[in-house]
């Protein structure tokens, strides 16, 4: 398939695969929970494996940090 262009945390990224799970293997944290928002909609973790990305999707990977 042709390359896919998405926006990840405000950076433009080119992908070879349209599987969200492939992107997460490379970009998501391994040691802590995280949440995914695509085009402003939260994707439940149960949907990660089957979720297909499309061109120009805006993706946010969000994790916990210290805070008061």
């Amino acid at each position, binding site marked *: 398939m042709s390359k896919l262009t998405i926006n990840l*945390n405000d950076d433009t990224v080119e992908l070879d695969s349209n599987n969200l799970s492939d992107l997460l293997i490379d970009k998501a944290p391994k040691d802590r*929970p*995280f949440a995914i928002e695509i085009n402003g909609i*939260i994707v439940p973790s149960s949907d990660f494996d089957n979720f297909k990305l499309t061109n120009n999707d805006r993706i946010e990977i*969000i*994790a*916990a*940090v210290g*805070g*008061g």
Partner: protein
Amino acid sequence: MTESKLSQQLEADSLKIGTQVYSSRLIVGTGKYPSEAIAEKAIELSGAELVTLALKRFDKEESSENILRPIGNRRLLPNTAGVLTASEAIRSAHISKELFQTNLLKLEIISSAKNLDPNMEETLKAAKSLSKEDFEIYVYCDRNIDSCKELEDMGCVAIMPLGSSIGSGRGFDNLLDLENLRSQISQILIVDAGLGVPSEASTVMEMGYDAVLVNSAIAKAKDPTKMAESFKKGVDAGRLAYLAGRIPVSNQAKASSPTSFLK
């Protein structure tokens, strides 16, 4: 009173906030610690059972530390820190719920990135919307009685007025306001933000505040672990004094010894 009797009395005095029950009345934040190891030790010595944390975009290059490690299995109170509007806060709340699988939420909407005092117009708007969902909202707010009452009426489980500006360590900008709030708000009241030393935590606990939330005063202290322990003692002492009941304040001397010699 012996140390064990003191701890027994405090253990029996549990704190119920929404559906949750705590034996500790000190809530701690997890920001600004010099290291994960120091955070872990400080959180442990604080005795806190509820800890706050925040959300951030994950960046593989800069995110080597995992704040969840030092927190262990304590209950999480995710905040909406960094947001300026109700709609951002609502978005943050939904992400937190998915990420942490909790409906506990610290609603915090600041006025600007420099002025961290609460934006009450947006806070009230967000609280109104989120209270229609199943969130248990701990809300960071100003000391205005009307807005605090409004938040109470919306069903927020804890009203959290600021002592002084976030991270300032200034203590109280207006202790009288906090005292007035306690006399008029029956919901759980927690002083959030600005405390610098344990005596300030004691002061509000003596007044009948239900708990205090402390981050910078512990995390940025020269020795965060000692400061965590001292805040725990300050909160416990203040609570016990509140339960014991302060004597009426008098403008005149009242002798505790005989006032004449051998008569």
